[in-house]
């Protein structure tokens, strides 16, 4: 920032006098806390002034939106051109029920789809597997074969929506099914738009739906990068996620650092396979949390963009601006929502969503008020969607880009988060990179320590959770309408699966599975075309992953307490 030297000196002097006065007044009237910090523990001053950002250079550190280092946003005019995609994560019970929910959401104004799969599907098990017992359809939709996808997207033209699929270890299979579905609808792969989460490293760290060990998992991921670069160019091949890392208890700086360190590992892996980061870089995307500390969250998103752009330019030597941009989806922090007084969650989500918008997100999911109790009802997800629409159409914040830029506090905090995050990234580099850091348990330990510290803060009353440890009321939530998954869902899904298996060309399926097995053994062969062939024949996800499990083995958790 351009401040005349003498003016700065006068401001600094005035500030020192202010601090001295404040110190005196604190003796007489203590403040509410001895130390004020952000939600992540960064100390917060009484007031910020020009001297706090005297080293900030507008063009180098901020730049215009849409220009390196993209601190202010990845598009020049952001929401003036187009709002973020209102993309509500949804799925439960059956493909039919989930399809109805998707069509409801689209009719209510959501502008993109987001598929939640059940746990067996996320972990590569068919609905009839012993490990699937009790779990079918509970946290998302069960998808065993292409037949389920056909039902899931009934009356939804794939050339008119973009779809994000939260699927990681078996991402290749679900992407193949989506492509095969497009073929059936007459939509060629090069027209398909969407995202697969496909981020295995955070599964090992914080989410738990891994299948295979790291090496073959990275191979599957880079196979997808390459396949999409050539055949599905509008597809976001990965959603490098910090959301879950934050949900597991990390601080904001750790959320940035561990996410971007994962990103570095993926870029490294693809480069090692001979891929061009200027090409695949354009289709990397990210996924962050929108947590409680409003201003820290805005600063976090800005810091993340700046750090990633510099990593891509300086560390990896990219020359394509578009491949340096950190484009991201955001979800409001589920773990901040309470089972007590669920209506309060509507307000929490509203603030969190606003932080994401002021932080320049490309896509947003807002949680429903019954988050801590069950999957959302139609009513509660409606309110969550309206929250986004009210921000977009009524709040006025979308009329200009990055409105909080230049705030002394916001810029100082952006810088502080950037500095902290870079320290973590450097530490991980020294260990030998993210894969080593995960193996050593370093990342997991950091997260757990932060989670435990937070729990202690809540139990001591130092951290207030309204309605939980302060301002409690006696409640009776027994009459509350909640979404329930019918227990017969599992049995019905197995019946469906058996019908598909009976009706398909089983010899052909067997042959495609053998082709996958052979290809799995050869790292130089891209598995995607073979998986695509198998799903076209209605091979099941469990069958495909079963072969891969046999060839690749299974990941064994590194238990870090």
């Amino acid at each position: 920032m351009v401040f005349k030297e003498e003016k700065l000196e006068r401001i600094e002097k005035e500030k020192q006098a202010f601090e001295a006065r404040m110190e005196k007044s604190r003796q007489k009237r203590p403040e509410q806390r001895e130390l004020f910090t952000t939600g992540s523990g960064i100390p917060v001053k009484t007031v910020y002034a020009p001297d706090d950002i005297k080293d900030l250079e507008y063009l180098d550190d901020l730049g215009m939106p849409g220009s390196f280092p993209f601190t202010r946003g990845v598009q020049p005019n952001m929401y003036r051109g187009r709002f973020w995609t209102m993309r509500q994560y949804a799925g439960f019970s059956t493909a039919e029920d989930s399809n109805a929910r998707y069509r409801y959401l689209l009719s209510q104004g959501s502008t993109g789809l987001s598929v939640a799969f059940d746990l067996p599907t996320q972990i590569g098990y068919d609905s009839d597997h012993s490990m699937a017992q009790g779990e079918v359809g509970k946290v998302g939709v069960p998808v065993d074969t292409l037949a389920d996808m056909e039902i899931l997207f009934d009356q939804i033209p794939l050339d008119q929506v973009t779809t994000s699929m939260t699927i990681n270890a078996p991402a290749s299979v679900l992407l193949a099914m989506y492509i095969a579905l497009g073929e059936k609808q007459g939509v060629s792969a090069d027209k398909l738009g969407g995202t697969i989460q496909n981020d295995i490293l955070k599964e090992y760290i914080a989410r738990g739906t891994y299948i295979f060990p790291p090496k073959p998992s990275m191979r599957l991921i880079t196979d997808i990068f390459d396949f999409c670069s050539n055949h599905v160019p509008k597809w976001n091949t990965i959603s490098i996620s910090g959301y879950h890392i934050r949900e597991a208890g990390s601080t904001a700086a750790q959320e940035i650092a561990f996410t971007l360190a994962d990103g570095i590992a993926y870029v490294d892996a693809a480069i090692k396979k001979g891929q061009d980061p200027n090409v695949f870089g354009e289709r990397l995307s990210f996924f962050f949390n929108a947590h409680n500390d409003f201003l820290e969250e805005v600063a976090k998103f800005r810091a993340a963009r700046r750090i990633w752009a510099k990593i891509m330019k300086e560390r990896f030597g990219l020359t394509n601006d578009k491949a340096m941009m950190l484009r991201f989806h955001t979800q409001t922090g589920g773990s901040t929502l309470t089972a007590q007084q669920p209506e309060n969650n509507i307000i929490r989500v509203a603030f969190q969503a606003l932080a994401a918008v002021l932080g320049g997100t490309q896509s947003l999911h807002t949680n429903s008020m019954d988050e801590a109790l069950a999957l959302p009802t139609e009513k509660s997800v409606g309110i969550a969607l309206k929250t986004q629409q009210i921000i977009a159409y009524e709040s006025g914040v979308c009329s200009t880009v990055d409105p909080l830029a230049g705030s002394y506090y916001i810029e100082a905090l952006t810088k502080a988060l950037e500095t902290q995050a870079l320290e973590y990234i450097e530490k991980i580099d020294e260990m030998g990179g993210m894969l080593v850091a995960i193996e050593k348990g370093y990342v997991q330990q950091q997260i757990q320590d932060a989670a435990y510290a937070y729990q202690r803060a809540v139990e001591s009353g130092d951290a207030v959770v309204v309605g939980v440890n302060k301002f409690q009321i006696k409640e009776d939530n027994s009459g509350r309408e909640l979404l329930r998954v019918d227990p017969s869902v599992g049995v019905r899904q197995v019946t469906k699966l058996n019908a598909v298996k009976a009706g398909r060309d089983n010899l052909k399926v067997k042959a495609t599975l053998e082709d996958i097995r052979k290809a799995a053994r050869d790292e130089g062969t891209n598995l995607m075309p073979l998986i695509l062939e198998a799903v076209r024949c209605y091979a099941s996800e469990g069958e495909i992953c079963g072969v891969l499990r046999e060839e690749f083995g299974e990941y064994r958790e590194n238990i870090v307490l």
Partner: protein
Amino acid sequence: MSERKIRVVVAKPGLDGHDRGAKVIARAFRDAGMEVIYTGLRQTPEQIVETAIQEDADAIGISILSGAHEHYFRTIIDMLKERSAEDIIVFGGGVIPENEVPSLLEMGAGAVFGPGTPTTESIEWLRKAVEAKRAKEVQS
């Protein structure tokens, strides 16, 4: 005479990967002087019951956020009966709707701790439950 430490297995049955709560409670139990065996993810009911018996545990704490609580509580409790280990206290927490808690208690669960429960509450409850269990053992 020194009191034998409470031994508790903290378990994650099934496919649910949400382990923040389980790890926090395991650590809190440990800090409260208990001996804790945390199973890690993807445990089958067989594995959980086997671990509890092998480790001579007083209690099993089941953490489940995936909606499969009815299945896992029932299976684990039934298995403990089959193996004549029903003196092992079963309790748990996670995302379990309030109106589904009574049926878990009826099955034989000692307590279900919902979101927002302070760790001190679970620790206190477990201490009392183990005390009562040991008192019964002495009598029999």
